């Protein structure tokens, strides 16, 4: 019996090995947010449009979407017309210009149109870390009472919007 005890480490390691093998090659990028059910974390960010420093107090009254984008992100180009359409249909969008530079971002909004009610600059990606963002585009749904209820990774299009809009209330 005592001898069997010495096999415990091996057994534990074998389980771990199988686990690693199953996990290998899977897409580790997809992750729902740990923030679901919580309010938007505190922030102190500069507005891209007005140069004011804004905090979570300045967020619009819900429900609204928080969209992480950047001029460097190809999928954001694809997503942009759809966001414009959403804005025109009356959806409130808050843009986070993620790991980006100011001048090209302003140019982008002038050239392609601005779907956002407010745009915040997250140049260092610090707010992105607080929100658990792994890349752009990423979109969070915030409900009427200011609680984050859904996270979507990747572009927003007709298909993903069908999923998302149920949460927007």
């Amino acid at each position, binding site marked *: 019996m*005592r*001898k069997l005890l010495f096999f415990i*480490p091996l057994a534990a390691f074998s389980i771990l090995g199988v686990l690693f093998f199953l*996990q*290998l090659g899977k897409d*580790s990028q997809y992750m729902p947010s740990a923030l679901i059910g919580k309010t938007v974390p505190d922030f102190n960010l500069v507005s891209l449009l007005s140069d004011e420093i804004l905090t979570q107090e300045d967020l619009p009254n819900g429900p609204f979407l928080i969209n992480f984008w950047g001029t460097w992100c190809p999928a954001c180009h694809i997503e942009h017309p759809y966001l414009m359409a959403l804005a025109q249909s009356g959806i409130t969008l808050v843009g986070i210009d993620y790991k980006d530079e100011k001048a090209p971002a302003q140019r982008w909004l002038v050239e392609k149109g601005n779907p956002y009610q407010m745009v915040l600059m997250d140049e260092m990606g610090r707010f992105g870390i607080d929100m658990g963002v792994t890349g752009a585009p990423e979109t969070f749904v915030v409900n009427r009472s200011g609680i984050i209820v859904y996270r979507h990774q990747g572009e927003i299009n007709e298909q993903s919007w069908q999923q998302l809009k149920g949460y927007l209330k």
Partner: protein
Amino acid sequence: MFPEIGHFSLILSLFFAFFLAVVPLIGYWAGNRFLLEAARPLTFLMSFWVFLGFMILSFAFLSDDFSVLYVSQNSNSQLPIWYKFSAVWGGHEGSLLLWALILSAWSSAVAFKVRTLPEDTGPVVLAILGVVSTGFLSFLIFTSSPFVRLLPDTPVDGGDLNPLLQDFGLIVHPPMLYMGYVGFSVAFAFAIAALITGNLNASWARWARPWTAFSWAFLTLGITLGSWWAYYELGWGGWWFWDPVENASFMPWLAGTALLHSLAVTEKRGVFKSWTVLLAIFTFSLSLLGTFLVRSGVLTSVHAFASDPTRGIFILALLILLVGGSLLLYAVRAGQVRSNVSFGATGREAWLLLNNILLTVLTLTVLLGTLYPLIFDALGLGKISVGAPYFNSVFTPIALLLMVFMAVGPLSKWHNTKLKVLLVSCLVSLFLAVFVSGVLVYLYEFTVLAWLSLAVVFWVVCLSFTDWFNKVSAGTKGIIPRARQLPRNYYGMLLAHLGMAVTLVGILLVSVNSKESMLRMSPGDKANIAGYEFQFDGLSHVKGPNYIADKGQFIAYKNGHQVAVLHPEKRLFNARQQVMTEAALDAGFTRDLYVSLGEKLEGDAWGVRIYVKSFVRWIWLGGLMMMAGGLLAALDKRYRRKAGV
């Protein structure tokens, strides 16, 4: 031409590593002395070819040979020369080569000392190191050769080293970290050799001790440097993020700390024999696991390493062969060991057992937190990420408990301690600790956790000095001669324990007493933060070797006197067109002033982040003390004697 020679020399080193892994073991089982003695020259040959390969890659970097893919990805002709050299380990392939180089350096160091070991043990130890080298060299050659060429379309210039890595901290951080990680392979090799030869007595523990202490000291330094680098380079003012990559280096450190202590018990008292062997395997396995997690991409991390599934499979296979193989050997062999030494509940053995239990629990806590997202996903429960809140809430209480016991352990005697003696020493310290920290908390209005932590700090300091004083005042010789007689080992322990206390002071005060603010400032503006007045003087354009920058000037005053001039920068790197924020720091013993430029606002205004961090240096000062303690312990005179004397 040279890169091909480099590739060829790595292949040669793989050959020698393979022979090193096989020949001495055959010699051991066949009882052939000639084959056993081949281990030493084979080690040197293997190391020589790895070293040559490394030199050739360094030469390719220094001579801007962009026909080599790896060089073109990680270097640039404008890069300053010291960064060209450190760019050798700036990417995946080169850091693996550094791994292999350091492994062969450790192997050669063992080979130099091999004559102090029994005739059949030494070569087996070298053979085990050969097995590990074979694994890593084949990983390097088959999946990640740094010598792949871009011919005939050689780029004119390289893509540049990631600007985050263009920094002094990153020149020295990886080599130190690897010295530690890989150094645990020596303790591992001793443990496996002990299992193979069946010499599971106290002597293997004595041989393994100085090696373990050396590796532990390097790993401590490596982690300290990494934390320091993250603090000033990432621009958030944080010093530890519980990121999977950080955890990957922290877990071997925790397990290695347990190993250091358990080796001491096994050597001195002959108890915990099979446990110590298991810890040695565990520690090195965690180093390997760290490499796997970082390189395979199964976990997401803020450290952007290129990951590749084929590499993942290879290193997983390696992990399973090495760790699974040694655990199987352990399962078969360790059951035969019996220890018949008993010890009392207040003996030093019991305290060290407690140390081992707590450190193992801490290691498993971090391991669980790191792997939890993986387990959760594999069971189909969905995806989650485990962040700092889990680690802080689970890790902190156990770590504080560990430190409480850490201070008592040295006061106890082997086998059994008189409870009364122990209680008297402890009561005085307990009173002092609670009182002094109570006063401080009353004065500065800290929280309960802060009060507890401060009490632990004073407790550790008081008891450490009590112990030292007890030891030097015993006997008739007088304090100074006695103090000089105490072994280096003891002073190393004292220094490392005090280092823990110093680090705790830093962690505590930086978290409860720091001030941060984000401001909008134009030239001429002033801001008051935590008693300091910061004045923004203006900006200038500067040109670096491979970047251009906006450089701000801030002057900090305290009570009307100028205390520091700070120059935060915003750098635009030419090759990658990447903007980097270079924070400006004024380091001080009790506080750091930290200014970083945020975004440019309208006109000449800037978003500016200003932090006043109290006692943040103490975190790393404690780390350095622990490292020095480890080195002192490793250099103890006892270890220089020959085996069996």
